[in-house]
C-alpha cells in the first residue's frame, strides 16, 4: 500500500503575534503535525507575493499569519498582508490552482491553541487536495 501523502507547508509568521503564538503552542506542549516549516518575519506586511509564489513551487500550501486587525505591532502591516494574499489567491485561481492552498490567519500571542489548530486544519485540508501540481520534486 502506498504511504499516506504528507503535504509540505510553509508558514510565514510575524515576530510579535503569530510567532509568539507558535511559541506558546510549544510552551503549552500542544501537538500539531510536523509538516510545517516556519519562516519568521518581523511583520506580515513584509510578505511579498514573490515569497508566496516561490514557496508554492516547493510546497503544497502556504500559510501567512499575523496579528489580529487593529493589533499589528506596526499599526497597519497586516492590512497590507490581507490585500496581498487576496490578490495572490485570485492569481492562483486564474492559473487553475486551488486557492485553498494559500491561507491567511490572524493569530495573537495568546492563541497558542489556535496556532496548533490552524496548522492541523491546513495539513488536513492539503491532504485532501493532494500534491500541488506546480511543486518540483
Amino acid at each position, binding site marked *: 500500500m502506498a504511504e499516506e501523502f504528507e503535504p509540505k507547508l510553509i508558514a510565514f509568521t510575524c515576530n510579535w503575534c503569530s510567532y509568539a503564538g507558535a511559541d506558546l503552542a510549544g510552551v503549552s506542549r500542544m501537538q500539531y503535525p510536523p509538516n510545517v516549516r516556519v519562516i519568521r518575519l518581523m511583520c506580515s506586511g*513584509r510578505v511579498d507575493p*514573490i515569497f508566496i509564489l516561490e514557496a508554492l513551487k516547493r510546497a503544497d500550501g502556504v500559510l501567512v499569519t499575523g496579528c489580529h486587525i487593529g493589533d499589528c505591532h*506596526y499599526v*497597519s502591516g497586516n492590512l497590507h498582508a490581507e490585500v496581498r494574499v487576496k490578490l495572490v489567491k485570485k492569481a492562483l485561481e486564474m492559473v487553475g490552482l486551488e486557492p485553498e492552498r494559500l491561507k491567511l490567519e490572524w493569530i495573537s500571542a495568546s492563541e497558542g491553541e489556535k496556532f496548533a489548530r490552524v496548522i492541523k486544519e491546513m495539513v488536513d485540508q492539503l491532504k485532501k487536495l493532494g500534491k500541488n501540481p506546480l511543486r518540483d520534486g
Partner: protein
Amino acid sequence: MIDKPRIGVYVCHCGKNIAGVVNVEDVAEHVRNMAGVIVAKDYRYVCSDPGQDMIKKDIRDYQLDRIVVVACSPRLHEPTFRRVLEESGLNPYLLEMVNIREQCSWVHMDEPDKATEKAKDLVRMAILRSQLLEPLEIKEVKVLKSVLIVGGGVSGISAALDLAEMGFKVYLVEKNESIGGHMAQLDKTFPSMDCSICILGPKMVEVARHPKIKIISHADIVRVEGYVGNFKVKIRENPRYVISDRCTGCGECQEVCPIEYPNEWDINLGVRKAISVPFPQAVPSVYRINIDYCLQCYKCVEACGAREAIDFGQKPKETELNVGAIIVAIGFEPYEPYQLKEYGYGTYQNVITNIEFERLINAAGPTEGKLIRVSDMKVPHRIGFIQCVGSRDERIGHIYCSRFCCMSAIKQARQIKEKLPEAEVYIFHTEPRTFGKGFEAFFRKTREYGVSVVRGRASKVLEDPETGNLTVFVEDLSLGKPVEVEVDLLILSVGMSPPKDLESLSRTLRIPRDPDGFLLEAHPKLRPVDTHTAGIFLAGACQSPKDITDSISQAKAAAASVAALLSRGKIRVESMIAHVNQDLCIGCGLCQEICPYQAMTIQNKKSKTIPALCGGCGTCASTCPEHAITMKHYTNKQILAEVVTAFQR
C-alpha cells in the same frame, strides 16, 4: 570583506527538553559537511556560561564569522547570543537562531523521527540564510530622562515616587479625578490591618508636592508614537469646569451647591454634590462640576468669588508629552457578578460585593462605619462570604485565581467579629489560598475569633422575600453533606477583571494581552515587568491579579527597569530598517503612503528612509513596485533562501 562565510553551528540539548525528542547529534552531523560550515557541535546547554565560552573560543580558533544557534525561541535568547558575538568582535546581526524547542521537540513529542527531520530542514534553512547575512550599523540615540506613568493607583504612585527620587521627570496620568485607585476605597489592608487611606494618603500628598512629578488627572491617553527613549504621547484632559491652578480646594462651592447625586466612589450608597471631590483626601484637591447633574444656578461661581476658578466654557485640552519610557499601571476592575444568576446579585438587596463591604465598614463611608444591610437598615448578625466569585470560573472566561479575595474575606470576617463579636460569620470557599507573608498566621487568628470556615463552593442563594434574608446552599465538602445556611447579609468575594478600557489602551500602546485579557509581559519569569515593546513596562494588576504588596513590588521593579534604561543616557535604536536604492527608485511615493511611521520622504523625486523613525516592519519593501527597497536583515534574498531550502532534500 571575507569572500566565503565561515559558519559555526551549535545544537542545544536544552537538557532533555530538546534532546529528549530530537536526535541532536544527528542534526549536527547532518549539516557538518554543508558548504561554509566550519564547525557543527551539539551541547547540553548552549546558553550556559561554558556554552557561550565554547562559541567565543570557536570564533577565535576558527575565525568564524556566522553563528547559527539551534536551540529555543529567538524571542528568549536572541539578545544573549547577539551579545556573545559582540563580545567576540563580531557584528551581532551575523547570528541566526533556529527554534527547535518550541517548534520541534515540544510540539512533535510523539514523532521523534519526524521532529528530527524537521529540525534538520530548519537548520539548513538557517545556514543558507546566514551566508547572506550582513553586518548592520549599530546606532545610538539620546534618551529623554522623563517617564510617563499611566494610572495613579498604588502601583503608579509607588513607581512615580521612586523615579522622581532618582531625578527623573514623571508625568502621572490618571483617568479619574483623583489618584489613589482602589486602595483609597479600602478600609483596612491585610495582613497588617493598617487603615488603608492612612498609609496611602501621605504618599498621595507626597506625589502632589514632589517637584519632579506632574499629575494629569481626569485625562486619557489619545495616541502614542515614537520609540524607546523618545516617545511622543498625546494626552486629553477632560473638562472639570474648574481651573486647576486657581482652585484652592477650600470647598466653599460645594457647601452652596444644591444638587446631590450618588457617589460612585462610595458604591452609590453615599452622595456627592454636583461640584465636589469624590472623597476628602482626593489628590489633586481640585473640584469638578458634573455637568450631567449641574443646574447651572451659578451659586458656586458666587462662592468662589475673586478666585474665579469656575469656567463653564472649559473644553477638553490636548497636550503632547515627550518621554523616554512608559509604565502602564492602570490596575483592574472588580468583577461585576450580575452574570452569575445563581447568587442573585442585583436581584437580592442584601447580596453585596467585597468592595462594597469596604465602604460599608469604613468610618468615612456612607454609613460612617456602621455595618447595616440595605434592605431594612438593620444590623446583620449572620453574615456569609462566598469565595471565587468571578475567579476560577470557565463559564465567564475567568480561569485565573484573583489572588486577593481569600485574604480579603478572611480580613473582612475578622473586622465583623471585632465590631460584632456575637455575629455568626461563615466563609464558603473552594480552597483557601493564604500563601503570602503573614497570611497563614492571619487566617489562624481569624479562626480563633470563631469564624466558621466551610469548605465548599456555594451552589445557589435564595432570598426570603418577606425578611430579605438569604439562604446559601452549599455542600460541606469535609462532611460530604448538603448544608443550608441562612444569613442576613451575604458578601460575594469578587475577583479582578481586566479594566474595560484595557483593550483600547493595549492597541494604543501596541502591547498584546494574555488569554485572560490582562497585559502580556515579555517573559513570565525572566522579564515580568517588561513588555515586548522596548521602553514600555508594566506594574500592578493590569498585568495579572495582585494584592497591594505585590503591586508595589512590581511597581518598584518597573521603576528600577526604567531607571536602568534611561540612566544610560543613550540607547541603541533599531538597526533593521529599510534602505532605498536610489538608482531603482522612481519616486512614486507608494512607500511614503503606506509607511505607518512617516519614515519615508521624497527628496529630488527619490524616496529616502529617515532611520530614526523607521520601525522596521518591511511593508514598504514588499510594496515597492520597482523592488528598490531593501529591508535590512530581512532582504528578499535572505527570505527566499529559506523558502528555497525549506523542503530541499
